[in-house]
């Protein structure tokens, strides 16, 4: 497997020239996020990830996690790498200084997670899930729970999980059956079985903190009767030392298609002692606090796997000699179809990076800006972009990983190349934290009701208009203008068609999300192309501009097949009789 090298040039280009990260240092609380710190953080995170975590990607895949009588051992090297990563302070990058974090913007954490996911996607889940648990505790936990648990989760001394899924409650959490009984002493006894629990049990740290969805005996049915509980693997004594083992038991781990280094556990709560987070029956809302960040993180996993596959394919194509190309080139990178695949991989990957980093910046603005209306606008953008970051970036992960195998040909299908691992790893990103269809339904449903897609269409149109006099950008502005009209038309159709038959948006949601994502990518490619035009003598900027041109000419036209497909309606999808399918 080729070594992972953090794409620092592209990361810095996106941070500086596309999203203008320096603006964050002007926000209260982010004064430290000056350009030298940004550069230092990226440099040093790249070093530790490239040298200690990325080399475990392939061995972690081959070795997998081992289960033995309730204990789980991660692949060799994971524990040491995790401890070095945590001790070096990386888990607390964007967490509150009050709890041992560094208080830096989430945008920087996003850049680090981009590298971590690309370096080792299975490994990235352990700190990734802990982030969600921290966020839920910060937002909804009592002062007491925060005081006991937040610092250790921030510093990575302990890890966290999200225990939502049960065998009968996957995408539909209204089916959650795990029970919680009030002991009237501030604790609850929780009983039930949770499945697909990432990091539910492992050997990195001395304590694991589970955030668990369960029902009180008198709770209403459905999602309005779900509460959230914090359940530690080991109880905490009053002097903060570890106490008794709580009866939270890992019953087994799953044998999976990919991400073998990540432990996916069946967790039995056998009257485990838990503490309620926030109020009764509001667990689902709290869960979404974790979930929204988790969805952005999964989007970064899609980006990461795409980046790694792209690096591997480019490296191979520059070395592999096979049939002299039409232009006389000896290596396969000169063959037009290989080049088409590589440019597709590059354009989609770099596009996902721009959308992800900009969404992260909006997230920081939504939290830190002094003006409430600015915060609201930024938060709207995060809400809109969350399903797009999650679903399109993970679809991209699969598309790009598959192309990566194709570029390598027969060699790509062989384990040793490392490319097939990316294909196997990438698929789960389209599934967990809400399948990509769930993301699409969120976009055409809740987000559409809030007018968020419509608002950003207006913003995109204004951007195209503002740049319209720049003739050097005509190559992308022209097709974007046509595509945007098509998106607007499709959006109007969806709103109308939803009233005629609710199946219409449901049947077209995934295609609509793809269409919307292509326009979003195009919007950022306009910004990237404009920045690249300034320094065309530099080979990076020359390639960036060429990639923008490739996007406009070869990827954006996908909208012309998507729009009519969306507007063909649900009837054609549902027409066949069930028995006949």
């Amino acid at each position, binding site marked *: 497997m080729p070594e992972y*090298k953090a794409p*620092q*040039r592209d990361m810095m280009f996106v941070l500086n020239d596309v999203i203008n990260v320096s603006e964050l240092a002007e926000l209260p609380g982010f004064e*430290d996020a*000056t350009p*030298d*710190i940004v*550069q*230092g*953080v990226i*440099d*040093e*995170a790249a*070093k*530790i990830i490239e*040298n*200690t975590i990325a080399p475990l990607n392939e061995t972690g895949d081959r070795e997998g996690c081992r289960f033995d009588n309730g204990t789980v051992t991660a692949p060799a090297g994971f524990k040491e790498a995790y401890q*070095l990563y945590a*001790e*070096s*302070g*990386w888990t*607390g*990058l964007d967490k509150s200084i009050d709890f041992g974090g*560094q208080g830096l913007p989430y945008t920087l954490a996003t850049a680090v997670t981009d590298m971590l996911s690309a370096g080792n996607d299975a490994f990235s889940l352990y700190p990734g899930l802990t982030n969600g648990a921290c966020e839920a505790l910060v937002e909804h936990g009592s002062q007491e729970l925060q005081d006991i648990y937040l610092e250790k989760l921030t510093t990575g001394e302990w890890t966290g999980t999200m225990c939502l899924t049960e065998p009968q409650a996957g995408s539909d959490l209204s089916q959650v059956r795990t029970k919680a009984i009030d002991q009237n002493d501030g604790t609850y006894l929780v009983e039930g079985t949770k499945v697909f629990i990432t990091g539910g049990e492992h050997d990195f740290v001395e304590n694991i903190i589970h955030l668990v969805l369960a029902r009180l005996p008198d709770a209403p049915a459905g999602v309005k009767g779900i509460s959230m509980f914090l359940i530690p693997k080991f109880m905490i004594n009053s002097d903060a030392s570890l106490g008794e083992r709580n009866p939270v038991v890992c019953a087994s781990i799953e044998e999976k298609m990919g991400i073998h280094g990540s432990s996916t556990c069946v967790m039995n709560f056998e009257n485990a002692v838990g503490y309620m987070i926030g109020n009764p029956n509001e667990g689902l809302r709290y869960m979404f606090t974790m979930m929204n960040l988790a969805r952005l993180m999964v989007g970064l996993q899609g980006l990461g796997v795409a980046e790694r596959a792209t690096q591997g394919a480019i490296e191979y194509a520059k070395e592999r000699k096979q049939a002299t190309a039409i232009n006389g080139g000896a290596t396969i990178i000169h063959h037009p179809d290989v080049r088409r695949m590589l440019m597709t991989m590059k354009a989609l990957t770099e596009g996902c990076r721009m959308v992800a980093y900009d969404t992260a910046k909006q997230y920081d603005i939504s939290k830190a800006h002094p003006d409430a209306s600015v915060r609201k606008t930024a938060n709207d953008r995060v809400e809109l972009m969350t399903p797009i970051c999650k679903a399109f970036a993970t679809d991209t992960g699969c598309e790009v990983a598959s192309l990566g195998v194709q570029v390598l040909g027969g060699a790509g299908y062989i384990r040793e190349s490392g490319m097939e691992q990316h294909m196997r790893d990438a698929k789960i990103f389209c599934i967990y934290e809400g399948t990509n269809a769930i993301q699409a339904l969120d976009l055409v449903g809740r987000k559409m009701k809030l007018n968020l897609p419509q608002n950003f269409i207006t913003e995109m149109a204004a951007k195209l208009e503002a740049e319209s006099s720049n003739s050097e950008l005509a190559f992308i502005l022209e097709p974007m203008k046509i595509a945007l009209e098509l998106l607007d038309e499709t959006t109007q159709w969806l709103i109308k068609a939803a009233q005629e038959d609710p199946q219409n948006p449901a049947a077209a949601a995934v295609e609509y999300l793809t269409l919307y994502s292509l326009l979003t990518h195009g919007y950022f490619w306009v910004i990237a192309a404009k920045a690249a035009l300034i*320094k065309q003598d*530099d*080979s*990076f*900027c020359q390639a960036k501009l060429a990639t923008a041109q490739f996007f406009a000419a070869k990827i954006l036209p996908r909208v012309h097949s998507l729009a009519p497909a969306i507007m063909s309606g649900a009837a054609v999808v549902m027409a066949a009789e069930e028995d006949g399918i």
Partner: protein
Amino acid sequence: MKILVGVKRVVDFNVRIQVKADGSGVATEGVKMSMNPFDEIAVEEALRLKEAGKAEEVIAITIGPKASQEQLRTALAMGADRAIHVETDEDVQPLTAARILKAITDKEEPKIVMLGKQAIDDDNNQTAQMLAALANWPQATFASKIDVDGDSANVTREIDAGLETLSIDLPAVISTDLRLNEPRYVKLPDIMKAKRKPIETFTIAELGIEPAAAVKVLKTSAPAARQAGIKVASVDELVAALKEKGLI
């Protein structure tokens, strides 16, 4: 005891070097720059001596453009106490660097000046030796092991014949080789702390130094592409081919 450590900003060792189209030098625009790897080893060794109680203060010094402060910040994040930046946009030749280091040495009076044995950009491997001569101090170059004991040090050197151990009196100049240690990973909180550590800035003129102009760069060009080899069928043919080329 103070240790002064030299830190140079160079093109990152992972970057494939490209020569500028006009032959005036190596392209650095938009290229990732890092601390010279041998200097990183020097910083690490100085910090280990401090952590072992053998030194009280580690001062990092660089000579170079404004942006070189990034590499000083790295040294500070690794654990150096403070830094000195001698700012210049000119190309600095080894003799100039040695003169500057001598001036700073006179000011700071360190017991050890620790330098990477060479910088990976020009690979000169001269500054440490020149500084030792200018200061009239002992030198121990290519160190792979350093034991400091009071006012002297035992330094194991990597030489062509293997290893050699020198006992030197301090103050001295030591240049570090690859196997001396493995530099630490910088901790994130230390990156933040480094921002608040002091960097003192001088110009070359302020130090009263006359830059050396002994070497003039006429032209920079990429090495010629390697010619494809040939296969020979026998030893005799090989010997004949070598003779024909005048190689034996």
